[in-house]
């Protein structure tokens, strides 16, 4: 890196001349090299040759070391006064309904949502919150939906998944990718809850690797319908749904080459089409009230009008659906955390041990404060993303992925700590936390495992950065036309190489948080530098370096979390809200600690000790797998 930087530095001093060629070759030798395209995270083809489309996503641009805060600062508030008024009218009745008409403990024990509650939910309009009013729904936008979903999350995650599997993914495809006929036909009945919907993608041999599904839909000879065969597992609402969004391989012929290959297509499948059956409800660790079942399709005839989003576009449709609903998870889990934290606070402020109330002890104080920090960040992410989406942004999928990872892990940790604060009481069913703990475990797994999402964030960001790198390389081929870019890059890299930080804090932050803004600015720069370094060193092969990618992803998560916290606290300070000082403390501590973690993670990406550790870790894993059991000899030899 140093060598190429030195060359560029001299470039900027002497203008363009013969030095360009050595620079060019030097860069090219360390740049993206063609590598065999092997098994990458399902379908996320990392083509380093893609054109760079400018993005307003903060996370995307972090990979270039740039702080693009258009969507983040000031903290967005996109509700019109009418939308706000509407929302205010809806929150209380929703809370009241859940407090009075839903018994989460009973639903968990019976492993189903009480029928009276289901009927109440239907009448409440809870099944079609985002369906337009003309089609029988409540017509809420993303932010309003997030606020109501928060209420659900606070009360009963089992019901939350029943509702979410139905509208957040079950029929969301029709809402975002359906044509007017499909919308008019299906949305009214699912919005009223008369018919339940489900999202059927996962198969026994295809979980994270969604592109490898085996269900097939073959077009009929007369082209009027498809015949679907396949089996899906772990489908929420699978045992009750009438309307399914099913993903299956369909033979697609390339018009130019005439070659036929399988591509995934999304279909709207009605149980009434025939050949649809389901298995018994799965016995689960948590969200027991939510129905999870296998669904089988045997020669199910699907009219060709029910293709959703176009033949061969199934994978894209699936990703869009999941992307679109992710913010809801962060919102729901904010509600869950609020519940857990309240339980912990009630206990900590009334329990006395060793002569003092336990909330006077540092250990407990740290737990409570950290719980509140995790909640604050999650809540800030949820509403920032929902507001971005409402404002029409299309650049939010990395942020959404991060929010899902963060929220699910934060909620698990918060509830775990709440149980700890409550001691033995926390372990007892009647305290109401053990059920929540069990319910929360799945959130790190479904809708894209956190592991996959981390790789997705890292690789998508790197692809974007890689694109920019290529842009720079191309600029160097034609420096006359691209002097600005070259000079800009040159000075930037030179400063980094010398050790000068850009000196740029994030802009637009309240003065009280200027130090945090500085830390974030530096963190982003170091992050971009690290990302670029990885691309230079590994090129396309970076896809295989999961140890490194995970550290990059964790840094990205910490930096985005820091940004949202600082943005929201800044807004509160500017508006002088009663809680602004409290929020300022949260944001400051978060960024202080996050920037340390980022430094650690980024160093690990480059340090030789870490690299050696990773090699050893991989080797340990291999030994274990080869042995099928613990490898180390027993200490006693017996």
């Amino acid at each position, binding site marked *: 890196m140093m060598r190429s930087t030195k060359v560029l530095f001299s470039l900027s001093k002497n203008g363009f001349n013969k030095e360009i060629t050595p620079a060019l070759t030097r860069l090219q030798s360390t740049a993206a090299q063609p590598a065999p395209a092997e098994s990458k995270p399902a379908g996320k083809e990392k083509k380093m040759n893609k054109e760079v489309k400018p993005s307003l996503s903060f996370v995307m641009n972090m990979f270039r070391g740039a702080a693009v805060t258009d969507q983040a600062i000031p903290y967005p508030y996109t509700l019109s006064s009418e939308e706000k008024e*509407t929302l205010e*009218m809806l929150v209380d*009745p929703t809370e009241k309904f859940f407090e009075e008409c839903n018994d989460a403990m009973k639903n968990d024990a019976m492993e189903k949502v009480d029928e009276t509650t289901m009927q109440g939910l239907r*009448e409440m*309009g809870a099944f079609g919150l985002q369906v337009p*009013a003309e089609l029988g729904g409540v017509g809420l936008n993303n932010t309003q939906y997030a606020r109501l979903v928060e209420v659900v999350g606070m009360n009963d995650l089992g019901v939350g998944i029943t509702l979410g599997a139905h509208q957040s993914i079950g029929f969301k495809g029709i809402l975002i990718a359906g044509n007017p006929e499909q919308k008019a036909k299906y949305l009214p009945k699912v919005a009223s809850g008369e018919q339940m919907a489900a999202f059927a993608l996962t198969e026994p041999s295809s979980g994270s690797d969604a592109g490898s599904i085996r269900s097939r839909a073959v077009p009929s000879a007369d082209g009027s319908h498809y015949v679907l065969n396949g089996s899906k597992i772990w489908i929420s609402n699978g045992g009750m749904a009438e309307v399914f969004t099913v993903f299956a391989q369909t033979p697609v012929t390339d018009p130019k080459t005439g070659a036929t290959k399988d591509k995934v297509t999304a279909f709207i499948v009605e149980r009434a089409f025939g050949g649809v059956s389901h298995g018994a409800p799965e016995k689960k660790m948590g969200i027991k009230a939510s129905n999870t079942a296998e669904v089988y399709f045997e020669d199910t005839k699907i009219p060709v009008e029910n293709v959703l989003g176009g033949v061969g576009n199934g994978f894209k449709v699936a990703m869009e659906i999941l992307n679109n609903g992710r913010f809801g998870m962060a919102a729901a889990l904010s509600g869950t955390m609020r519940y857990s934290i309240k339980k912990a606070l009630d206990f900590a402020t009334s329990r006395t041990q060793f002569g003092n109330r336990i909330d006077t002890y540092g250990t407990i104080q740290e737990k409570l404060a950290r719980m509140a920090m995790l909640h604050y960040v999650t809540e800030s992410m949820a509403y920032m993303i929902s507001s971005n989406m409402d404002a029409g942004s299309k650049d939010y999928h990395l942020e959404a992925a991060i929010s899902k990872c963060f929220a699910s892990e934060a909620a698990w940790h918060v509830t775990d700590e709440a149980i700890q604060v409550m001691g033995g009481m926390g372990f007892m069913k009647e305290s109401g936390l053990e059920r929540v703990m069990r319910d929360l475990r799945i959130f790190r797994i479904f809708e894209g495992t956190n592991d996959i999402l981390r790789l997705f964030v890292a690789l998508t960001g790197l692809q974007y950065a890689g694109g920019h790198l290529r842009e720079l390389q191309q600029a160097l081929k034609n420096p006359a036309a691209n002097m600005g870019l070259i000079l800009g890059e040159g000075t930037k890299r030179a400063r980094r190489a010398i050790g000068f930080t850009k000196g740029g804090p994030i802009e637009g932050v309240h003065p009280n948080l200027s130090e945090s803004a500085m830390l974030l600015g530096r963190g982003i720069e170091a992050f971009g530098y690290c990302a670029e370094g990885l691309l230079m060193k590994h090129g396309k092969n970076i896809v295989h370096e999961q140890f490194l990618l995970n550290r990059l992803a964790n840094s990205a998560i910490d930096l985005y979390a820091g940004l949202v916290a600082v943005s929201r606290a800044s807004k509160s300070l500017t508006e002088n809200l009663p809680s602004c000082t409290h929020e300022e403390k949260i944001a400051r501590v978060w960024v202080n600690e996050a920037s340390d973690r980022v430094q650690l993670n980024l160093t690990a990406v480059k340090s030789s000790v870490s690299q050696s550790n990773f090699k050893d870790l991989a080797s340990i894993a291999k030994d274990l797998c080869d042995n099928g059991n613990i490898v180390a000899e027993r200490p006693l030899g017996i």
Partner: protein
Amino acid sequence: MSLRVLVGCKRVIDYAVKIRVRPDKLGVVTDGVKHSMNPFDEIAIEEAVRLKEKKIAKEVIAVSCGPTQAQETIRTALAMGADRGIHVEIPAKEMEKLEPLHVSKILAKLAEQEQAELVIVGKQAIDDDSNATAQMTAALLDWPQATFASKLEKTDGELEVTREVDGGLETIKVKLPAVVSSDLRLNEPRYATLPNIMKAKKKKIAKMKPKDLGVDLASHLEVVEVVDPPTREAGIKVEDVDTLVTKLKDAGRI
């Protein structure tokens, strides 16, 4: 014969809130505290809406007196099925001094203006527990009253009302027009569903001031003091009945 029903609904501190006495001891803390519709008034609205569903009533008008937030209460009534609302604007400061007599005068005037044939209110509000508005409204209108209603039935030109009284249940007949106050067991109010709340936004709420109705809000009552009830003292366990009797005598209770 289709009735026009006027229903009074009051915005009060939510029943689940922990009440705190104000430092000046002249009232309770209301700032930032959760408010909702008086539960007995919800029952009143529910009854009126049910009458409409049975085609006994043709229109249900929800009335609330109070500051701007009173509109939220009216909207809840509209979401439950009331047809339109009337908001009698009274600023927060004056709300503290609002008495049942004032409200009764307002309701009486509105009943006349709107040509209502039935006025239903909750038997009492959970903040002041006055249990006076229904009675005074009837008196001002010179209409019969049926208070503490736990059952309401319409017979030709009359209402048959079952009342909850100390001794049990009493059934009376009242001629229309009449004033009814709802008791707990009259019905179980429906939940305002989200679609209905959205539809309620389109229903009209007329605004007016007490003086538009010729009602003057001069005070007849003065709050002297508001204090917490005395904290409950610990009890003592006694061994037998004789000791119990002795202790009660010592305490001057018997």
